[in-house]
């Protein structure tokens, strides 16, 4: 019986090639989209699960809040003393391991110097908490000794070639020598952190670095990512309730928290499950850029919608062609077929076509995955398709898709009464015509929502990339500020300025495009005394040339100047800061006594507000300070150089030459500030490209369906067209006649799509502090575009029918 079904299914597919092509093509594209997105989802969900103890590992995070309890900062990392105290107070914790990222660091071996990016200090425990396989060396002691390091094979090869790397000594930042103790396998792509080199945590106990005491008392240096290993099925989350008491026990009387105070009113600790980090953690400081569960959901939904559009094509074309199959169904019924058997037959047909589509989709997925990776910056691998869950899904897909698209046609076709279809009384009911129209409206509504979304994503992107930032981001070269430069900075700066193309040189703790995360207590003049400021003001350590380099205008008072020796205790505030300080005009703040982070001084000037952070963030109150000579080494981290812009290449070459003169041990690496800005919106850029792709695919499949449907409906009206032409109708009037019906459907689809698109994009835009307003013409444009594409599609058929010789049409009846 099945063989018979398959046989007739196959013959029908080959007989109606055009329709079969539309169905097969649409379903293939739809299933491919789903597979691609599924690969993405599986990849995103798989983060950190390769760890055999994944469900037992939790990360400690720390939030800071003001007296009202409003969280101003939530960090994924905590201060170093937490780990030993937690271990001591909570004996259920089996192991604790810490990771301290060291940023980009220069490593030196013999004549080789390279900058390495993923450098982390790590406790030796790391190997017993996370799955990090060692290729050489002993995992129980690899990071035990101070000044030992573990590196990946690739890194070892870069420095030592084929020689045995164990016990080789490498110099870090021209300061410390590290001995290679083991070689590790690289961490998998789906790990929330990566490391090329691990340095032993015990190194930090050296008195020249933090010192043992420093690690136990520095509650302010929240840069240590701290992971706890619990026993199987341990209710780790319940520990959070005991953390406030823990904080009060250890922190009161230490580091800014007075004796007998309750630090727990100002800071809190939380636990975060390892497997939740990648998709659900978006804290102010993370080891790497995490994924986004919302994005996973959006793309999952889009893939399903595209598949739905393809399934609708199948339903519409199958029911539209019902007259072609009616006789066969009648004969089968008269030959004794039950309705169930007819349904089975048609479902076999749709499952067969879905099966072929699924096979093609697998091939297409493997072929397109590299370009999807290019488009999204992801590193998805086709190997994910070999996972048992995906294979199971691949088996189920043809059945589900087949039934989804075939059930309605099967029910409809199997309801035919043989006496009617065999005696020529058969007419496809108007019910199905209406149902088909509803489905076409649904298809186009989905397509139009996607079109509008695409347009708005790109508008917002364009806005962010071109909005006035409040400073000049052109021709600014940025680079790190190595410790080695500290003593010679002034002569480094003056040497650079000797080149006429170098306009300004400045150093700062942070540079625009970075986050503003540093904050200390502030007090402002009130009568004769200083009154603490309740609002949060973020600080950036700068030097005299920062405003000049970035072209930030001063609205009141003056910029820093080397002519005033008192400027080392002078402050610059932005207008936003003056607003939270409660003064009427910025002018009022100028010259006032002010205290920030314990340093007392005066406000020398007020700068215009500018976007230091990305457009996602609102402009925050900022204070600029010039750190004292003692603090400078810890505070500066970046150099910014303003170039003239006339001969960039020569200027960069000159900067490099100067760098090498002053810092022979540090590789020269730089980025242009505007490239950093582009990177800030990379995620939106990718989202935009993906939306464009998906919207294009959706409307394309919908139009394919429309093409098939219009071809069919026109063939049904061929006699009417002939009669009209004989009576003198023009080609134009016939095309209009045939197109109006379908265009009306697109119009209804638009009306349905508009509010949905508005609501969705309104929500999406809420993520941005600075955003475009949604314009009505975007909606109109999307509607017109959809209508135009639909019109072209229909016209292909309509014109063909309209210009045909009417005699032919009439004679064939």
């Amino acid at each position, binding site marked *: 019986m099945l063989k018979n079904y398959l046989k*007739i299914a196959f013959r029908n597919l080959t007989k109606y090639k055009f329709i079969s092509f539309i169905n097969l093509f649409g379903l293939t594209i739809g299933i491919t989209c789903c597979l691609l997105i599924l690969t993405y989802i599986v990849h995103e969900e798989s983060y950190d699960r390769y760890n055999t103890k994944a469900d037992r590992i939790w990360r400690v995070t720390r939030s800071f809040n003001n007296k009202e309890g409003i969280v101003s900062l939530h960090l994924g990392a905590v201060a170093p003393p937490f780990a030993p105290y937690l271990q001591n107070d909570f004996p259920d914790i089996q192991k604790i391991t810490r990771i301290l990222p060291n940023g980009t660091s220069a490593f030196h071996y013999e004549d080789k110097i390279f900058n390495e990016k993923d450098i982390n200090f790590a406790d030796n425990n790391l190997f017993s908490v996370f799955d990090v396989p060692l290729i050489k060396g002993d995992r129980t002691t690899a990071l035990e000794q101070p000044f030992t390091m573990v590196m990946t094979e690739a890194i070892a090869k870069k420095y030592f070639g084929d020689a045995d790397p164990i016990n080789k000594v490498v110099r870090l930042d021209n300061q410390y020598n590290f001995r290679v103790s083991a070689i590790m396998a690289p961490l998998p792509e789906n790990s929330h952190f990566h490391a090329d080199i691990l340095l032993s945590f015990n190194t930090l106990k050296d008195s020249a670095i933090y010192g043992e005491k420093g690690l136990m008392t520095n509650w302010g240096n929240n840069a240590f990512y701290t992971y706890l290993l619990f026993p199987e099925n341990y209710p780790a989350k319940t520990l959070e309730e005991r953390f406030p008491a823990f904080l009060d026990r250890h922190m009161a009387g230490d580091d800014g928290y007075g004796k007998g105070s309750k630090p727990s009113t100002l800071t809190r600790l939380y636990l975060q499950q390892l497997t939740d980090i990648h998709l659900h953690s978006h804290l102010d400081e993370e080891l790497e850029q995490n994924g986004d569960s919302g994005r996973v959901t959006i793309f999952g939904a889009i893939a399903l919608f595209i598949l739905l559009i393809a399934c609708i094509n199948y339903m519409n074309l199958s029911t539209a062609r019902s007259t072609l199959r009616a*006789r066969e169904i009648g004969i089968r019924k*008269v030959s*004794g*077929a039950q309705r169930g058997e007819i349904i089975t037959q048609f479902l076999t047909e749709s499952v067969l076509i879905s099966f072929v589509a699924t096979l093609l989709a697998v091939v297409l997925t493997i072929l397109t995955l590299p370009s999807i990776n290019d488009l999204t910056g992801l590193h998805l691998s086709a190997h994910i398709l070999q996972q048992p869950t995906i294979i199971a899904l691949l088996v189920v897909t043809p059945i589900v898709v087949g039934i989804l698209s075939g059930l309605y046609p099967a029910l409809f076709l199997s309801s035919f009464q*043989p006496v009617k279809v*065999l005696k020529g009384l058969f007419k496809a009911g108007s019910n199905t015509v209406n149902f088909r129209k509803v489905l076409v409206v649904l298809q186009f509504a989905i397509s139009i929502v996607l079109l509008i979304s695409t347009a708005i994503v790109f508008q917002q992107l364009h806005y962010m990339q071109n909005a006035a930032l409040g400073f000049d981001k052109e021709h600014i070269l940025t680079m790190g500020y190595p410790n080695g430069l500290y003593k010679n900075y002034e002569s480094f700066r003056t040497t650079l300025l000797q080149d006429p193309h170098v306009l300004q040189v400045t150093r700062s703790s942070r540079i625009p495009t970075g986050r503003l995360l540093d904050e200390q207590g502030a007090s402002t003049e009130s009568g004769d005394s200083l009154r603490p400021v309740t609002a949060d003001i973020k600080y950036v350590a700068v030097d005299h040339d920062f405003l000049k380099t970035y072209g930030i205008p001063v609205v009141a008072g003056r910029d820093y100047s080397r002519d005033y020796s008192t400027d080392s205790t002078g402050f610059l505030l932005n207008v936003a800061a003056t607003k939270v300080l409660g003064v009427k005009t910025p002018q009022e703040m100028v010259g006032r006594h002010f205290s920030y982070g314990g340093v007392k001084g005066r406000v020398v000037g007020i700068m215009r507000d500018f976007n230091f952070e990305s457009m996602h963030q609102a402009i925050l109150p900022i204070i600029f300070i010039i750190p004292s000579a003692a603090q400078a080494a810890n505070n500066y981290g970046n150099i910014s150089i303003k170039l003239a812009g006339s001969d960039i290449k020569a200027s960069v070459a000159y900067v490099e030459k100067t760098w090498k003169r002053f810092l022979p041990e540090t590789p020269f690496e730089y980025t242009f500030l505007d490239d950093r800005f582009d990177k800030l919106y990379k995620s939106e850029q990718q989202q935009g490209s993906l939306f464009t792709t998906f919207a294009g695919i959706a409307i394309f499949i919908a139009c394919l369906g429309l093409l098939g449907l219009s071809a069919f409906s026109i063939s049904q009206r061929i006699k009417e067209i002939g009669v009209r032409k004989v009576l003198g109708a023009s080609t134009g009037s016939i095309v209009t006649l045939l197109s109006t019906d379908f265009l009306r459907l697109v119009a209804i689809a638009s009306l349905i799509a508009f509010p949905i698109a508005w609501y969705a994009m309104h929500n999406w835009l809420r993520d941005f502090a600075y955003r475009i307003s949604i314009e009505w013409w975007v909606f109109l444009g999307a509607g017109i575009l959809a209508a135009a594409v639909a019109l072209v599609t229909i016209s292909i058929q309509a014109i063909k029918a309209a210009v045909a010789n009417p005699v032919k049409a009439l004679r064939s009846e």
Partner: protein
Amino acid sequence: MIDLKRISKWVNVGGKPNFILKDINLDIKEGEFVSIMGPSGSGKSSLLNIIGMLDDSSEGEYFFLGQGVHGLKEKQRSQLYKQYIGFVFQAYHLIDELTVYENIETPLIYQNIKGSERQAMVADILDRFQIVGKKDLFPTQLSGGQQQLVGIARALIGKPKLLLADEPTGNLNSRQGEEIMDLFKQLNNEGVTIIQVTHSEKNAAYGSRIINLLDGRIDNFN
């Protein structure tokens, strides 16, 4: 075999019943060869459809082999005709996508007959109708007469007791028509009950009994 009692069929046109069949009483014995005649619109086909259980009567009782058909559900009726009735149509109604062999095989598939058995049965009938050479051709590759031969073969493959034919020679030329009628005569001699609807006096003459219909009634005065 067939016992129709006071069968009427009407459709409502503008709220008023429009009678297609009115008060039909008919008794057909096993082994009969009945020809139903009458002008266009007299209700011949409707009567045949009701006998073939493809359609319901609006009123009256229908007993097939002693069983009341009028009270049966569609599924039970279809079980009944699947087992006992074969249909032959004026327009042959072969499935274009299936070969001659597969067309003939179709009813057996719905009777859940095993593959090997089906093969034997189809081979038998192909042989008997002398169309073995045509078994792999598609209907469009056959002449009208050949198509109707396949149609009859398909109707007979399930070994029905009753063969219903609606103008079986209507689309054929006279020589082909004669061949088909000869075949019917022969089948009837082998014990198959046949009811045919026809316009042709000549074809009607092949039957053992002629029923004349006029305006939905059996016309006994002809």
